[in-house]
């Protein structure tokens, strides 16, 4: 009888101990939202990464949640913040940084960077990508799926027009000259092949930023409190774009749809297009002719905006969750994984040493255009991002579209956009 009681005691103590141990080992749950913005089996790749990470880190349970487009993802993340249960980490547009800070939704990474290795890791990313990830001396985002704008050109069309297919336009003047030679008209004067096109639907500001940077200025300050839409250099840049359409007639009229631009290129309706590096895989598998990829042409300097998504850490999470998420972010951005992610998706590998890995070297050796984005990165500048970002950006988008459709002169359009943006940004000074 006594023995029985003793046994029972042992059993219950053991059970209690077991549950304590189990509690201590209960895996940390890290939920993470990610959007998909380019073609390809992205969700499968992300799930694979999560599974590999869990295998190496049994104490952490990673829950990747596919959250739609970038726009839907930020809507979901911010709604989740307001309702109280945001993800621990999320990939969102790098330009959403100020919005997330203003909503008090995220924490900077600085508190988690403790060891010298961490500091070295933080310094390993291309500075061009960090411009959209840091403000006020703190790092709020870690570059992951990033892109820039490049020029794609049809080498066959170049040959037909008597141009050297291995010499893409290096500056604005050459781009106009080439485009004039590449624009073909039929007997009735109808254009059958345009020289060049820069898409202007949805987010024309991004491509326009390339022109502005090439002309010597970016569109905003680093603190996100000022825009420079009506600087003479910016007006000149827009004038150049409008001239391609109206003066030289080498660029399609009206608003050029972003979504159909790759198809316009495959269909040989246009010989040169400006679009994201993210379209590289798409163009590679669909263009039935020899094509080239080049850096954007220079005017006063070379230049392109960066784009794409960063990792953010949400404020409403426990320190253990943040540590776990941080561990994952470091894990997924090692040179090997950054390289593999770039090869699988077409995004630009975010750190220089990723390009030195054997896998990436082999990829570039077999497909040279992949390296163009890398070579352009030293000239890349931050994508337009300010406080109340979407509204300030819309002011510019509206102005650009008004100028391109001819309802306003470039000067008028940009002055109106600047006035509107100043009105919005007054509250943040």
């Amino acid at each position: 009888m006594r023995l029985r009681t003793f046994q029972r005691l042992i059993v219950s103590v053991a059970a209690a101990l077991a549950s304590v141990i189990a509690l201590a080992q209960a895996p940390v749950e890290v939920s993470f939202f990610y959007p998909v913005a380019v073609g390809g089996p992205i969700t499968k790749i992300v799930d694979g990464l999560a599974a590999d990470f869990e295998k190496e880190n049994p104490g952490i349970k990673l829950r990747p949640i596919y959250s739609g487009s970038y726009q839907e993802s930020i809507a979901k993340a911010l709604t989740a913040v307001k309702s109280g249960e945001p993800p621990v980490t999320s990939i969102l547009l790098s330009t959403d940084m100020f919005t997330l800070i203003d909503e008090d939704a995220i924490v900077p990474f600085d508190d988690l960077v403790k060891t010298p290795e961490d500091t070295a890791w933080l310094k390993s990313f291309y500075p061009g990508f960090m411009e959209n990830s840091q403000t006020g001396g703190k790092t709020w985002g870690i570059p992951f799926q990033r892109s820039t704008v490049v020029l794609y050109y049809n080498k066959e069309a170049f040959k037909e027009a008597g141009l050297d297919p291995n010499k893409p336009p290096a500056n604005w003047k050459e781009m106009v000259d080439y485009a004039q030679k590449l624009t073909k008209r039929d007997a009735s004067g109808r254009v059958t092949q345009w020289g060049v096109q820069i898409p202007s639907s949805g987010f024309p500001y991004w491509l326009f930023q390339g022109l502005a940077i090439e002309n010597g200025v970016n569109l905003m300050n680093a603190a996100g409190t000022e825009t420079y839409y009506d600087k003479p250099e910016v007006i000149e840049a827009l004038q150049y774009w409008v001239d391609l359409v109206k003066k030289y007639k080498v660029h399609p009229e009206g608003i050029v749809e972003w979504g159909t631009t790759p198809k316009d290129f495959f269909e040989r309706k246009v010989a040169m297009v400006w679009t994201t590096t993210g379209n590289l895989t798409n163009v590679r598998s669909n263009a039935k002719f020899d094509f080239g990829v080049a850096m954007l042409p220079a005017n006063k300097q070379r230049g392109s905006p960066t784009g794409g998504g960063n990792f953010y850490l949400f404020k409403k999470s426990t320190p253990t969750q943040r540590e776990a998420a941080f561990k994952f972010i470091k894990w997924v951005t090692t040179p090997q994984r950054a390289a593999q992610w770039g090869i699988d998706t077409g995004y630009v590998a975010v750190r220089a040493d990723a390009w030195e890995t054997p896998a990436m070297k082999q990829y570039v050796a077999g497909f040279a255009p992949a390296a163009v984005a890398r070579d352009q990165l030293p000239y890349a500048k931050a994508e337009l991002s300010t406080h109340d970002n979407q509204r300030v950006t819309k002011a510019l988008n509206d102005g650009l579209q008004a100028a391109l459709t001819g309802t306003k002169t470039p000067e008028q359009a940009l002055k109106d956009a600047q006035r509107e943006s100043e009105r919005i940004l007054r509250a943040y000074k």
Partner: protein
Amino acid sequence: MTRTKEWLYGWLLLLPAMALLVLFTHYPAVANLWHSFYSTPRGSRQAVFVGVDHYRQLADDPIFWQALSNNLWYALGTIPLSIALALMMAAWVNGRIAGRSVLRLAYFTPTILPMIAVANIWLFFYTPEYGLLEQFLRLFGVPTHNWLGSQSTALPAMMVVAVWKEAGFFMIFYLAAFQSMSPHLAEAAAIEGASRWYFFRRVTFPLLMPTTLFVLVNAVINAFRLVDHVVVMTRGGPDNATALLLYYIYEIGFRFWDSAYAAALTMVLLVLLGAAALAQFLFLERRTHYQ
């Protein structure tokens, strides 16, 4: 005692419908009105009472006025056309013609298709140079045109999509109405020697009035509610030429995160739709003959 019981019984019967209505219609509307008088809370900054500030801001907001006028043109352009088309299609497929079920199905198909997919298809119809519309027009020597990319044609192009989408849906209601109509009326009219047009004008059309009223209310609501294709095809561009009221509300609310201003805009939409529905019921109801 029995009165109380009956009273209780009645309310219990009403309860499920009322709970849903209050929860998802009345409460949100009132909460929305309430929020429209406060500023948008952002991070650590709490919402403060701002009175009618948002409504004043609204009066000065050129994009709001443009969205409103776009929406009125959109309603004006799509409603009468889609109703007239629906009526004609219904009259046609109601007759004894070969393959009429196939025809009915064909007319109804646009309604079944998801709007986002449809909008993507239309996007390619309208593509300059090699889009379907361009290829067709080229046969007649019409010069190429960027339909969605110029301010004058973008909104009409969107209207065409809406008419195409709506007409088939409304046709179903007219078809049902036609089929419930007694054939004796037509026979009697034929004996009296009434022309087909006269018969339609004096008999068929008045008998269709309840359906027309129903369709009209739906069409008005849809004209202010249908925005999926704007999101896919133009995102309100070029320079707000296709910004409709609901799309603008979405933009303010879920892209700019200015939920309070979005609430004020929503009130405008609510009042507008309420007034339209009321007017339709008050004026048209009198002229409507229910069998």
